[in-house]
């Protein structure tokens, strides 16, 4: 699946994860460190995700 990590707008191809939680773990993020968005909808960590999904991971930290 194609993952866009914001705010950097870095595109990553990630395979073999089946839930939002798995995806966040793979990216080294806690569940409250990013919004996960598919088709303009927010996803909770328990939601399944699929191989053809295009997903935005928007980190929330305004660290600056």
């Amino acid at each position, binding site marked *: 699946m194609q993952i866009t990590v*914001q*705010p950097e707008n870095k595109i990553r191809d990630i395979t073999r994860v089946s839930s939002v939680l798995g995806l966040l773990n793979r990216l080294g993020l*806690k*569940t*409250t*460190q990013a*919004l996960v*968005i598919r088709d303009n*909808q*927010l*996803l*909770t*960590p*328990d*939601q399944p995700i699929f191989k053809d999904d295009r997903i935005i991971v*928007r980190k*929330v*930290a*305004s*660290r*600056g």
Partner: protein
Amino acid sequence: MKCTRCREKAVVALPSHTAGFCPPCYLLFVERQVQKAIKDKKLFSFDDRIIIALSGGKDSLALAWQLKKLGYDIAGLHIDLAIPQSSPIARDHVERFCRAYDINLSVLEMEKLGLSIPEVRKKIKRPVCSLCGKIKRYYFNKFALDNGFNVLATGHNLDDEVARLFSNVLSWESAHLGDQGPLLPEENGFTRKVKPLYRLSEFETANFCFIAEIDYGFAPCPYSGGASFTYYKTLFDELEHKQPGRKLSFYEGFLKRGRKAFTRLDLEEGVKPSPCKSCGYPTSEESCGVCRIKHMLEQS
């Protein structure tokens, strides 16, 4: 996951509140957190004239959106810092937002006041963020007083507040510990300052902006590299992950049980500010911070 309130599908999970919410219930959750802050801490009433410091980031816009919706008497103030990489984008977001929601906006341009931040940074060999922070606080306060606003509201969230508190604790900054909190009453030439979002984390305000469709800017300031509290925020994310709700209870606990001791200490030992000899702004020295910055710029 289902919404804790209405059993529809949840889109936001909040371990700290052991809850999940669908979009409409989430907006309600945020509204209640803000109302609770305003009521419990007696931040302001419908009779107050409130000026909101709008940076263009998610928190300040979320704050304006919510206070407008609740029907408070608000206006916005944006400070254009004249930083080429970030200021135009920030200002554009603020201007569009205020137009869309019919909020009265004033913009102060630091360039016109001879205080463009790149200039300040080039000419004064001090950490730019501390100078920039001084300048912003000065003009927010001055603008409020000069224009008949009796409350200055900022979008500081729980993560900002906890990081600041932790930093002050690490160095036992007793004066800062004594006046940290969501309400600083008006005194000694400073307007009342409030932080109505202090119960909401960064994650919560980000979800709020997404659901309320608030378009915010995320062009980072090019000078934010060593952003002071970043590391503390990351530390607290770890702690919050292991102990959900810890951040809020740490902060509320400080307000209830810790702060008083430091306030008392400050009354005994602190210096009472007096008016700056050039501009009248309250300061503990002869000239206030901004007059000193201006003076240094003239000399360089």
